[in-house]
């Protein structure tokens, strides 16, 4: 769990639910008693262009609300990966979609790849829950927030009637996340 200050940058393209994922992560942190700030960046073409969410967690005060030296970067597309990898702190974690992200830039960080989109598409038949799968992966690998808090936060935010789907997405995410972490 985050102690001093823990930063995550979640990046992908509009429509992938990246910002929702950021919000859920921050909400999970709040449920777990942490301080949290979530910010975002988007263009006018929010429905297609690049999209980025940043989450900062801490047990204490959070002054600067954006990431400076991210502990984790979740990259859902190659573009996002190329653009934000430099934001990772030394020894940070780059979590990349196994299929979508081609060629990870060199750097002093740990790389974990997981089939996030593929799992959503093939196992869950709903690409739209890739963001929840990603959250599962991210928390499984980083333990940034307790899994119960994360599940609670997911269920509180997803549309009624989709709880079961999202619960499964999260569970699968955690599963592939653990597997990937071991392999890396």
């Amino acid at each position: 769990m985050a102690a001093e200050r823990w930063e995550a940058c979640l990046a992908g393209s509009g429509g992938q639910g990246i910002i929702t994922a950021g919000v859920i992560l921050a909400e999970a942190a709040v449920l777990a008693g942490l301080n949290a700030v979530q910010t975002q960046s988007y263009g006018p073409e929010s429905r297609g262009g690049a999209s980025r969410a940043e989450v900062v967690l801490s047990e204490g005060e959070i002054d600067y609300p954006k990431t400076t030296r991210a502990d984790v970067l979740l990259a859902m597309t190659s573009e996002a990966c190329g653009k934000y990898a430099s934001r990772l702190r030394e020894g940070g974690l780059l979590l990349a979609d196994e299929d979508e992200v081609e060629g990870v830039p060199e750097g002093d960080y740990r790389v974990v790849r997981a089939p996030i989109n593929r799992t959503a598409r093939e196992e869950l038949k709903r690409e739209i829950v890739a963001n929840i799968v990603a959250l599962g992966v991210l928390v499984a690998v980083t333990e940034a927030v307790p899994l119960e808090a994360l599940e609670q936060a997911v269920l509180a935010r997803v549309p009624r009637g989709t709880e079961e789907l999202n619960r499964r997405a999260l569970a699968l995410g955690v599963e592939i996340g653990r597997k990937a972490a071991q392999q890396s």
Partner: protein
Amino acid sequence: MRELDFLRVQHLPHIWCVGCGHGTVLGAVIRAMQKSGIDQDRFVVVSGIGCSSRAVGYLDMDGLHTTHGRALAFATGIKLAKPDLKVVVLAGDGDLAAIGGNHLIHAARRNIGITTVCFNNGIYGMTSGQYSPLTPAGYRTTTSPYGHLERDFDLCNLVKSAGGTYVARSTVYHVQQAAMFVSRALAHDGFSFVEVFSPCPTYFGRRNRMGDPVRMMEWLRDSTVQSGAAARMEPEELKGKVVLGEFHRTVEVPEYAGSYREMVDRLRAERDDDGS
């Protein structure tokens, strides 16, 4: 595709969403322009702010992307300064009828030679889905979460009452008709106005169970009726239907920029006569 000749292709694909009708309207406008025989470099396209208003950026010709709602006022300046240019305003229903409503009725009143194409999606797309003066009563938007209470304008009727001299309405489903109306509007000497329904699946659609672009096209098909057919229908049958067609066309009113030039020429001739 000949349309590409009129586009700044280096900036494509455009920013519009999946299934957004604005690209279709733009295509229709381009074809009407190409059919008009007017030189590409004699057009000036002017818009306000909104998803639709970005259209002018994609057109490879003189273009002015102004402030929200003010396209017609800027266009009036251009037309009066260079009456020989073909000034075309492309903008959304929010831009033209909400914040820009006053400029619309005054441009129509003056019968200034500007062709206006209203990309009507019944919503503010750019700001993510609030109601516009063209949102039909009862529909849901982010600012009418309980169903919209206001009535929408009959924009064609309003423009006609204000003084517009060519007024027509179509939809992107009826894309060929839309292009035909725009082409007649371009040929018209005076204030010409074409309203084209253009779906916003992202905001109008999703909130109203029509998130699928195809569903929105069906809605356009099913909720409209051609004026010819409408004339033969009972008021009961017409309920909830929007009539498409050409509603007004007159050539009896002088075009404003031309009248102004004539006055200038007359006054200067008189003065020169005096002087001689």
